[in-house]
């Protein structure tokens, strides 16, 4: 479980995040949504430690990220996996080598065991047949799946996904969403997804945090979102005709 308490983040004079309080539970897919420039990427970066908050706490199962010493921080990072918007696979390595990289770096297992674990992760994301290909030889969706396999290689407790569906067609997006959701439940991870994709919100949003101009505007799940009376949330979620019609049909 990850708890964020009274989190503030400023850049020079600009307050980007203001008093964010939320809980991300394990075994659930937690979504952070919001308009471009609302501060959701900054929040994600504060949670994973790429930005240091101006004030506040980020608790990983009770351990405060902000006050951790270097060694504790190093150990915590090994419990994290992250899927980047661009997949961020190492382009000089094959898919298998990419997935093996965290194992090569931190695992004490022998080579055969490391290969076996990497192949297990690739098999889990249905990508075993592409193990010897380089990232630029596979599609965007396959790159995302390879990045998920790399993120789960060390069996992390926390999984972060920064816009996992960006640049993917709707069908592939659903595959990625389902994969992230299934892996979250299967490995009982705390997963936080930063997304714009309303299909993801409606499909796998078990705990949704809506950020508006740097503060928490709304929190709930996909069922509650349909009946929400929050005007700002509704104008964001139901901006497209399709979702507006779905809501009207539900009424």
């Amino acid at each position, binding site marked *: 479980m990850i708890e964020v308490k009274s989190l503030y983040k400023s850049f020079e004079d600009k307050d980007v995040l203001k008093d964010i309080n939320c809980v991300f539970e394990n075994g659930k897919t937690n979504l952070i949504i919001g308009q471009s420039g609302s501060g959701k990427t900054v929040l994600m970066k504060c949670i*994973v430690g*790429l930005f240091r908050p101006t004030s506040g706490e980020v608790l990983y199962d009770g351990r405060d990220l902000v006050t951790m010493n270097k060694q504790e921080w190093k150990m915590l*990072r090994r419990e994290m996996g992250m899927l980047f918007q*661009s997949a961020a*696979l190492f382009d000089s390595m094959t898919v298998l080598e990419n997935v093996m990289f965290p194992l*090569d770096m*931190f695992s004490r297992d022998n080579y055969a065991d490391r290969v076996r674990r990497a192949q297990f992760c690739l098999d889990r994301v249905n990508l075993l047949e592409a193990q010897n290909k380089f990232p630029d030889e596979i599609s965007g969706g396959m790159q995302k799946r390879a990045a998920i396999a790399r993120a789960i290689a060390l069996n992390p407790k926390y999984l972060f996904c920064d816009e996992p569906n960006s640049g993917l067609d709707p069908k592939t997006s659903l595959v990625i969403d389902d994969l992230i959701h299934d892996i979250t439940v299967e490995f009982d991870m705390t997963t936080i997804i930063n997304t714009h994709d309303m299909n993801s919100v409606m499909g796998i949003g078990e705990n949704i945090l809506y950020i508006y101009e740097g503060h928490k505007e709304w929190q709930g799940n996909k069922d509650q979102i349909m009946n929400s009376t929050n005007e700002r949330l509704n104008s964001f979620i139901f901006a497209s005709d399709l979702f507006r019609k779905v809501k009207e049909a539900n009424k």
Partner: protein
Amino acid sequence: MLLDKSVATFGRYLMLMGRTFSRPERMRMFFKQYIKEMSQQGVDSIGIVLLISFFIGAVICIQIKLNIESPWMPKFVTGYTTREIMLLEFSSSIMCLILAGKVGSNIASEIGTMRVTQQIDALEIMGVNSANYLILPKVLGMMTMMPVLVCFSIFSGFIGAYATAVVGHIITVDDLTLGLQHEFNEWYVWMGFIKSIFFAFVITSVSAFYGYTVEGGSVEVGKASTDSVVSSSVLILFSDVLLTQLLS
């Protein structure tokens, strides 16, 4: 203002070097990268070093023969001067300037691209010291290979000079050989090695710094690549003066 910026940049460079020169996370991974970098930065540069040095050796020999030698000069002066230029300046300093263009831009664009495509962020999230993992093998690999490249350059230059004797008949082989052997000072070779190792550090660390600190997209990566070549070339020229004074 400019001074402030320069001091700030130098401070950031020192901080990056502090992170770079720490104990590698996994020695096995470090050696794998180290060998790869020696091949990529060093072995892959042998061709261009041999080619340029061969022609420069030949041209130096022809120029000295045509412009310096006279009836009052001993016949070995052409070979002697060719050797001294190759040992003292060309193979150690000018060759490093050329390599700053090839190796420096390669390093800056490689690391810069990794930065803008979030590959460095991915390393950091995994808990890997990205500066140490990416930069240290490049710096040590190039510092290891540079004296080897200097050796290749020296011998290729001499072969170029012999080519002018054998093919062009500009000078006799005996006169050239006599000049190349005349009052040989072994320290000049060591001086070239010392200078080249220092320049290898300058090229790789400065280029890696520019690549690592890129912010933006492909335009900024291109700019970082150009800036790295310009900065490392200027630093090589400045430090060449200091090192030459210090070692001579």
